[in-house]
């Protein structure tokens, strides 16, 4: 790993004490629905040849049942509808 990234992660941001990011991000209904569609239609990455299988307890090597069910449906229209047509993500990030 890059030594700079390694230091940032190993020191758990202690080099940036006092860091803060605060504010709001308005997100439209349209964007939320685009994100939802990405979620519903995302494909599982194929496992590289030679990679050890994931432990069965994690369920990662089992077939993606939810994807199979979704693809088997004849009609599948899931969407988010906001009454005011906009959601607001409130962001507060701090390192003490």
């Amino acid at each position, binding site marked *: 790993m890059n030594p700079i990234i390694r230091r940032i992660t190993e020191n758990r941001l202690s080099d940036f004490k006092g860091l803060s990011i605060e504010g709001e991000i308005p997100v439209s209904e349209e*964007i939320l629905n685009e994100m939802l569609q990405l979620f519903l239609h995302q494909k599982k990455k194929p496992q590289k040849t030679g990679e050890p299988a994931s432990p069965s307890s994690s369920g990662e090597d089992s077939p993606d049942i939810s994807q199979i069910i979704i693809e088997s449906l004849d009609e599948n229209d899931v969407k988010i509808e906001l009454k005011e047509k906009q959601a607001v993500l409130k962001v507060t990030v701090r390192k003490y």
Partner: protein
Amino acid sequence: MSANILKDYFLEKLENHDLTGMEGARLACHIPVQENFLNFLMNTLIASPDKMNDFKELHFSEMSDDEFLVKIDHKIIDREIRCKIHEIEYTGHSEREVEIEFLKGIKFYEKVLLGLFGKVKYNWWFFKNALESGEEDESGAFWKLSGSKIKINLDVLLRQQNLAFLVPMVDWKGIITKNNSIIIDFELKTEHHESNYPANN
């Protein structure tokens, strides 16, 4: 959902300047970088053969009251220079620029040498390659030496780091030194910050 899918989705929108559905976002960012980390960063870059290894030393200390001491050991200059960071201002081209004034430790002839050094095209992280390239085209340089000051063009710096999409979104509030840290304050806004430009631009 994988965080990468979301990251790629938003990055693509931002890179295409497509802020539809995200207008009006405001994030105030306050990022203190401690002296220890800054010096670790410099040492790492100096130790990298493809980055800044023609510097023997670049060490920051006494970072407070918007001032700092920097020890530079390079084939062109070997000095300890006390510097002061001034307020971020707009250039004639409505680009944001921060001025660092040399208060002590640098002589007239060294400023001339640095001026020549400044004519070489390079960016902050890849001094060495550029110094060796010998190109004299200044169009891409993000800093220039002016008298007893060095002026850093923050917009050009972002563009050189492949972050051009951030230029219209970042509203710089200040860069100061305090408590052995350099503190960077800015706001990220998903609206053009032209309204913040001084009226005479």
